[in-house]
């Protein structure tokens, strides 16, 4: 049984997305953000920023395998970059704010577009759909995204603020990581979250090319390969660390 739907004419006079009021000029940014195509473009741009961060973050952290001194020195260097033109931790804070901005734009756009899509198909199909092209990854973007967001909050509590339950000392990056990852449940949380990130990037790393309009017969086949390659590198690098610590290979 379906809900009683409206008469066609009434339905079309009340579209999914109301038009802006006539005659009111809105600032460019507001006008631009009002469009779903532009929101997807912003999601791709902020997605690339986040991918850049995820990649650099992983490469930096792999110093875990080069020993305590190497990793702690790298962590110290992060606070110094940009000196002397910027104060100590200056560039770090600029990057942090840029990332925070990117995360907010990415998530708010995702939430608004999701609502728009729900309104565009209020009555679902009553018989089962037979999907021909949509993948597990493309259909779970919202959920893998939410898992990653929740994980990032926990990860900051755990290793940046030191309130994740493990013994934590400011500046002792190597030891903090060992203390945290030695706990089996926590290692599993890190591994699952990074697998979710990998699934998100399997679709996102391809989808962003379409959203940005980067389509060219000469490299179209490479877009999927890029997404698979990028997601694989990030997952292998990030999952290896909790795995190596919890199994005692690194301690």
């Amino acid at each position, binding site marked *: *049984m*379906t809900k*009683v*739907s*409206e*008469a*066609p004419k009434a*339905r*079309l006079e009340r*579209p*999914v*997305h*109301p*038009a802006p009021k006539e005659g009111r000029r809105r600032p460019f940014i507001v*006008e*631009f953000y009002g*469009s*779903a*195509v*532009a*929101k*997807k*473009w912003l999601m791709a741009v902020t997605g690339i920023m986040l991918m850049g961060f995820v990649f650099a973050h992983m490469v930096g952290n792999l110093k875990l395998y080069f020993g305590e001194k190497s990793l702690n020195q790298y962590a110290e260097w992060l606070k110094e970059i940009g000196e002397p033109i910027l104060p100590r931790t200056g560039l770090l804070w600029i990057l942090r704010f840029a990332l925070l901005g990117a995360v907010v734009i990415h998530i708010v756009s995702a939430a608004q*577009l999701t609502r*728009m*899509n729900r*309104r*565009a*198909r*209020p*009555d*679902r*199909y*009553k*018989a*089962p*759909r*037979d*999907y*021909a*092209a*949509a*993948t597990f990854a*493309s*259909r779970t*973007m919202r959920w893998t995204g939410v898992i990653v967001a929740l994980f990032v909050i926990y990860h900051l509590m755990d290793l940046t603020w030191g309130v994740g339950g493990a013994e934590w000392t400011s500046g002792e990056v190597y030891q903090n990581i060992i203390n945290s990852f030695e706990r089996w449940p926590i290692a599993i949380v890190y591994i699952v979250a990074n697998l979710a990130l990998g699934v998100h990037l399997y*679709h996102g790393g*391809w*989808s962003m*090319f*379409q*959203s*940005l*309009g*980067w*389509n060219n*017969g000469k490299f*179209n086949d490479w877009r999927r390969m890029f997404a698979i390659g990028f997601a694989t590198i990030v997952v292998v690098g990030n999952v290896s660390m909790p795995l190596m610590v919890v199994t005692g290979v690194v301690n």
Partner: protein
Amino acid sequence: MKVTLTVWRQPGPSATGRFETYEVDEVSEDMSFLELFDVLNDRLIGKGEEPVAFDHDCREGICGSCSMMINGRPHGPELGTATCQLHMRKFQDGAKITVEPWRAASFPIVRDLVVDRSAFDRIVESGGYITAPTGSAPDGNLILIPKAVADSAMDAAQCIGCGACVAACPNGAANLFTAAKIMHLNLLPQGQPERWERVTNMVQTMERYFGSCTNHGECQTACPKEISIDFIALMNRDYIKAQFKQRRLASQRG
């Protein structure tokens, strides 16, 4: 052959709908899927029951009227085939086939399998044309068009406006239809003067009625004309460019 049809019946736009099951026997495998419905309707009328309302016109894959969700896929399981071109030989004898209408907020159901697709007309009205002096036909080859461009524009121009892309899209987005209608003009020299206005107006009209693309790719698989999602990327690119374009310089190349 014999098939079991489960069909969505809804007497009117605001009425409650439900599935009805019909056994249809003595079906020829050379029949089209629409002819199967003709046979069913004849028998229903013979029994004094209401025939199933469905849209159809050309029955040769060019008008875009036919629109049935067949076993969970728009226009059924065959690629590059509209419902009217789908033959019964593609189904097994004794097959169970479920048919429902397109479902999208802006494709309201009129009756049974008929939906109102006039939201597509709103999109085309907002820019799917060129302004050209009418009168006698211009000489051939006056405007030179590279072969690759002409081919690509013709690929997009194949869209018959059936709405299968919207029906297939988990988001109820109309990006494939809109991209096809924009790009067959935006690719050609004749479409250039209105290129940036066209993409802005048509995308914004589309967004009033339909959902937002997340690049699942269901639409191009469902499309009876096999229109590629490459056109969606090109539309996105033109849309973003148009927003940043200085209108006074808009006639410059690039």
